[in-house]
C-alpha cells in the first residue's frame, strides 16, 4: 500500500469517526431532552419502574438505530412518542396483559419528599393516586394531550407536533381531556 492510499484510508477513517461522533452527539442531545418525558409517558402506562426502564431503553435503542443507519428523524418528539406508544402496545400484546392498574406506591417512591412528615406524605399519596387513576381511565387521545401539556409542560406547538395535529385541534383535545379528567375525579 503506497503513501497516498494510506492517507486516503486514514482520511476515510477520520471521516467515519467524525461522523460517528456527530451521530453520538445528536443522539445524546435527544436522549437528554426526551428521556424524562418518554420515561414518564411509559411509566404512567406500565406502572413499573423496571418495565418502564426496559421499554424506554427500547425506544431510544430504536432511535439510535435510526440515527446510526443515517435514516432521517424529522420530528423527534412525534417520532419518540409514537414509538413509545407502539412499544407499550407491543409490550401488552406480547405479555398478553390487561392494562395494569396504577401502582401509586411505585410512583410515589420516585418522588417522595423525605423531609415531609408521614401524614403529609400519605395525603399527597392519596391525591396523586386519585389523579393517576383518573388519568388511566381517560380516553388515550385526551390522556396523551393532557400529559404532554400539563405534566411535561410543553408548549401547545410542541404538543401539537407530538400528536401530529393542528394547534387548534390540540387545544380542543386538552380542553376536552381536562373536562373528562374532572368528571372522572368527581365521580
Amino acid at each position, binding site marked *: 500500500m503506497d503513501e497516498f492510499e494510506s492517507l486516503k484510508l486514514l482520511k476515510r477513517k477520520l471521516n467515519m469517526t467524525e461522523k460517528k461522533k456527530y451521530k*453520538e452527539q445528536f*443522539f*445524546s442531545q435527544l*436522549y437528554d431532552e426526551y*428521556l*424524562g418525558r418518554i*420515561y*414518564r409517558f411509559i*411509566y*404512567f402506562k406500565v406502572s413499573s*419502574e423496571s418495565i*418502564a*426502564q426496559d421499554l*424506554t*431503553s427500547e425506544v*431510544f*435503542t430504536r432511535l*439510535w*438505530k435510526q440515527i*446510526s*443507519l443515517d435514516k432521517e428523524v424529522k420530528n423527534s418528539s412525534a417520532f419518540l412518542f409514537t414509538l413509545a406508544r407502539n412499544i407499550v402496545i407491543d409490550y401488552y400484546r406480547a405479555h398478553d396483559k390487561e392494562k395494569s392498574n396504577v401502582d401509586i406506591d411505585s*410512583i410515589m417512591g*420516585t*418522588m417522595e419528599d423525605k423531609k415531609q412528615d408521614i401524614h403529609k406524605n400519605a395525603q399527597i399519596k392519596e*391525591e*396523586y393516586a*386519585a*389523579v*393517576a387513576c383518573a388519568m388511566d381511565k381517560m380516553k388515550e387521545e385526551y390522556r396523551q394531550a*393532557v*400529559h404532554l401539556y*400539563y*405534566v*411535561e*409542560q410543553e408548549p401547545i406547538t410542541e404538543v401539537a407536533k407530538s400528536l401530529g395535529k393542528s394547534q387548534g385541534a390540540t387545544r380542543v383535545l386538552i380542553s376536552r381531556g*381536562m373536562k373528562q*379528567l*374532572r368528571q372522572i*375525579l368527581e365521580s
Partner: protein
Amino acid sequence: MTEYEVIKKLESMKKIKPNDDWVNFSKQNIISKTFEPEPSIGLKDTIIELFGVTFNRPKLAFAYSFLICLLFGTVFIVNSPYGSDLAQLASVISGSKIEKSVSPEEKLLAVIQDTELKMDKIVAESKEKGEAQVETKKILADASEKLKSLPADQKAKFAGTVVAKVKTLEKNSNAVIMNEKEPVVQEFYQVIAENEIKEIESNEKNLTDEQKVILKKAKDFFDVKKYGEALEELYKIQPASN
C-alpha cells in the same frame, strides 16, 4: 379538587424521574450498539417473493398461470408474421370463407391452374382409357363445384379451358372421355353456350342472314337444354364472324 389543584397535581408529576445511574448506563449501553444496514431487497427478490407467495396458493397459482399464458400467447401471436393470417383463419372458423380476401382474378387463375395440373398429370401418365375416363370424371366433378363458386363473368373462361383440356385428353388418348349427356358436362356446355350466344348477340348487326338463322337455331337448342347441339351451331358462326 378544583381544576387548579388538578393542574398543580399534574404539573408536580414531572418530578417523577428515572434513576440517574440507569440513565447514564442506558445511554452508554445504547450508543455502544452497532447496526448494520439490512440488505436491500432487489427487484429479483421482490419478484421471487411475490410469485412465491402467489404460487403457494393453488387457486391463485392456476389463475395467474392462465393469465400469464394468455398474455404471452397474445403478445407472441400478434407480433408473429402469422398475426395477420389469424384474421383470415378466424373468418374461416366463423363460417365466412377465405376467398373474401382473394381477388376474383386470382381465384380463377388458381382454379384453372389446379384443374390444368390434374389434367396434365393424366395426360403425362398416359393412363389406360378406362382409368383416364374415371379420373377425368372426378376432375370434372371437382371443376363443376369450382365453377359454381366462380363469379358469372369468369365462369365461361374456366369452362372453356376445362372443355379444351378434356378434348386434348380425348385426342391424345384416342377415346371419348366426356359424355355430353352427363349433367356435369352439360353444366360446362351450358356456361360456354350461354357466353357464346351473348357475345354473338352483342355483335348481331354484323351477322349475315344465314348466321342469324344459325344463331336462332342455336338458341332454340339452348332453350331446350341441348347445349352440345347449341354449341355446334354456334361454332358454325364463329369462323365467319372472325
